């Protein structure tokens, strides 16, 4: 198996080649405004080392923050027709009702609400009003809309109304891009609908970006399929990623954590990823980041879907350092480090300057930081360690000491001993852990629904069967499937021993 993993970060685009489980080569190139130039550059510099010659490449796995940035910066968004199936319920809270006004104004192409949806136990809430769906689609077409977000009450339990409505709409608008909220999963109509509408708003950008990625791979002379990494540390084939771009929102941080697990050989540990501006702390469970179990706001919109549970603090290799009184971060010089840091002839004292003065890093001009004595450096490192320790403690879910893997370009800020940590592990290629995480990503399947009148064991095994089938249809090899998360929640008030079960499985990409 030979794969290239690429992580497009805010500062650098990292690329690694992995062969039979070993990192063969890692390179960095500056991230470009158009993203694809950076990818092309990194592939070129990987190619220049000669490692790509000879054997073929099985896959190129790209992690990108492109889609989440579009939402946060309100750029490149498509107008969306929102179609909700569930009338007469929920009419007082229509689609977009809790969006920030500026974003709603950009994305809201129109709202249609018709009868349909299901009950918690699978009974139809109302029969789907097919004629109304067709009329809605005709109005959407007349309004010039091309992307539709469909939501339906309890669609994670029974997606049939969403699917049927999508068919009917496609008859009227054969070229429309359609997002069904049930593809994004969780219970919670508004949050699931919001995720669907954001996804629909990324329709044009996803199409163009994925096409540009494929072009960049072809232009670099590599003949391999493209995969896009997902929030949960798995990958999707390019076609699925084009359909569900929201699933790659937070893949950068996830890739770092997965890469950390891979490079260290540990499956259960805390990970601290120290970048230029921020430090992310998360927890690995079975080699995957623990997921946020709650509402996550993206660009001001409440959503609820697979995202890693992370704590970000303003600490990194570019963090501003003030000596009197002592303060490290949260401001950072970011990608301007090589111009503005003192060791590089600039005026801003940064953590990197301290590391150069202390002899931890061989960068810039050591003479320029010679005035920083050992005691000063120690004080700054202690402060950085204190910030890290606090963040780690906040993310820990058990009382005892746990191992900590330190990765990222700023990992030098993490000392070898920290309270609450059994062992600090620095790994080779740790500065490219994100690209490594992309290269080793697997395929997942998930089931989240309510089961009635089954024992707990029966419900869990039914959910597992559904999750397995979904993983296989997403491209996983069945023999490699492993359950990495299994959670059951009995439901108050509901009769018949109702239990909500969430199971997630992962497996290797089939054929690799």
């Amino acid at each position, binding site marked *: 198996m030979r794969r290239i993993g690429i992580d497009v970060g805010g500062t650098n685009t990292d690329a690694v080649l992995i062969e039979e489980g070993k990192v063969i080569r890692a390179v960095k190139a500056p991230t470009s405004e158009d993203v694809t130039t950076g990818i092309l550059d990194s592939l070129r510099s990987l190619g220049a080392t000669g490692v790509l010659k000879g054997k073929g490449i099985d896959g190129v796995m790209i992690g990108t923050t492109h889609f989440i940035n579009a939402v946060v910066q309100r750029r490149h968004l498509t107008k969306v027709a929102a179609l909700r199936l569930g009338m*007469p*319920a929920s009419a*007082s*809270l229509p689609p977009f009702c809790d969006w920030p006004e500026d974003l709603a104004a950009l994305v809201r192409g129109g709202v249609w609400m018709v009868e349909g949806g299901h*009950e918690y136990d699978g*009974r139809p809430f*109302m029969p789907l009003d097919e004629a109304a769906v067709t009329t809605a689609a005709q109005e959407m077409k007349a309004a010039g809309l091309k992307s539709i977000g469909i939501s339906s009450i309890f669609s994670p339990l029974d997606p049939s109304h969403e699917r049927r409505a999508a068919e009917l709409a496609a008859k009227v608008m054969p070229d429309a891009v359609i997002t069904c909220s049930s593809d994004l999963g969780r219970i919670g109509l508004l949050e699931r609908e919001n995720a669907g509408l954001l996804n629909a708003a990324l329709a044009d950008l996803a199409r163009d970006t994925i096409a540009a990625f494929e072009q960049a791979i072809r232009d670099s002379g590599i003949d391999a399929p493209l995969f896009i990494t997902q929030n949960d540390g798995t990958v999707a084939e390019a076609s699925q990623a084009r359909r569900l771009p929201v699933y790659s929102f937070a893949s950068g941080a996830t890739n770092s954590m997965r890469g950390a697990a891979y490079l260290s050989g540990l499956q259960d540990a805390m990970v601290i990823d120290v970048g230029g501006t921020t430090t992310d702390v998360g927890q690995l469970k079975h080699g995957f980041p623990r997921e946020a179990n709650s509402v996550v706001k993206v660009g001001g919109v409440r959503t609820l879907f697979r995202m890693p549970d992370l704590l970000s603090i303003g600490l990194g290799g570019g963090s501003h350092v003030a000596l009197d009184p002592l303060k490290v971060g949260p401001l950072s010089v970011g990608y301007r480090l090589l111009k503005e840091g003192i060791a590089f002839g600039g005026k801003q004292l940064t953590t990197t300057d301290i590391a150069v003065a202390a002899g931890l890093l061989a960068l810039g001009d050591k003479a320029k930081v010679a005035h920083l004595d050992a005691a000063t450096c120690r004080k700054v490192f202690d402060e950085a360690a204190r910030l890290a320790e606090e963040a780690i403690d906040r993310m820990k*879910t058990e009382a005892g000491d746990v191992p900590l893997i330190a990765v990222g370009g700023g990992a030098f800020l993490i000392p070898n001993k920290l309270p609450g940590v059994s062992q600090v592990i620095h790994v080779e290629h740790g500065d490219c852990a994100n690209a490594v995480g992309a290269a080793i990503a697997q395929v997942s399947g998930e089931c989240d629904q309510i089961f009635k009148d089954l024992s707990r064991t029966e419900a869990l095994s039914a959910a597992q069967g559904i999750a397995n089938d979904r993983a296989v249809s997403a491209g996983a090899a069945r023999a490699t499937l492993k359950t990495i998360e299994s959670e059951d929640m009995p439901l108050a008030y509901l009769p018949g*021993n109702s239990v909500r079960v969430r199971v997630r499985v992962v497996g290797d990409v089939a054929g690799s």
Partner: protein
Amino acid sequence: MSLREITADDIESLAVGAWVLGTGGGGNPYLPLLNMRALYREGHRVQLMEAVDLADDDWVGTVANMGAPLVGQERLTDSLTLARAVSVMEEHIGHRFRALMSMEIGGANGVRPLMAAAHLKRPVLDCDTMGRAYPEAQMTSVSVGGLTPYPLSAVDVRGLESIVKKVPSWKWTERVARKICVEYGSVAATCQPPRTGAEVKKWGIHGTTTKAIAIGRAVREAQRRHDDPIAAILSVEPGKLLYTGKVIDVARRATEGFLRGVVRFDGLDDWKGSTMTINFQNEWIVALRDEAPIAMTPDLICVLDSVSGEAVGSETIRYGQRVTVIALPPPQVFLSPKGLDHVGPRAFGYDLEFRSVFST
């Protein structure tokens, strides 16, 4: 007689404060809050009324949603459906309600009466019948007072309207209404048994709407100033700080239609080395510090996010959360022997003699 307009900002505070008074249950008031924002944008306004301003023979409607919070996240209750539950009751009894009130100020039901009141143009009373949230209909001040447990209206948005015309006790009100609710799809808008002005004045738990608003305002202002929101709550309410810690285990099970379970915490800051365990049945019921019971129903046990000061619910509390546990004083009506029969620790199956955090 004075009515006071509830401002849009009051409603934001009410949602935060009602969630604190939910003591772990009652459902997050976020969706009712969204409804109220929309209603206020459309020009609706709701007035707040003191119970003392009621005439003894006035009629008062008590509004509540029944059902599973999870269903409520998919079938979002419409403001018009809640208003309809009130109208169905008025049609049944042949009287017009002078005002509406909350059955439970804690959780989402603390905000819902305002949704009906906005449409029906009636004031909302500054009182409720729980002073918090509780899982069952007989756990109210009006039940402790032995007031008539019927009739009850239950409405579904699809045009289903039911009246529980007569039952012999509040436990039957709960049982029959629960059955209707389940048939509807485990969510129903209800108007609870109607009350007279005299009954409300005697048995209502007074000042709870303004209390929820004051708690919410304290939390929101502290958040804005980056002050300690817990200290802010304790500055407006005579509460007690019980514990600061981190969630280390959550065990849940559904039994007899309730979410029961135990949450365990490890101490932080002043409480390092000390453990806490809280048992819940939808709401937080008994808190033990270092294995010894220190707070129990009807004292209000509130688990709050240590940073934001916002309440943490029993359905969503999870590993690793940093929380502060405080107790708030219980409504007087629950401290009588009869009150403790209804909502004391034994009513929830704990063989404990009630001892208030506030009695020492």
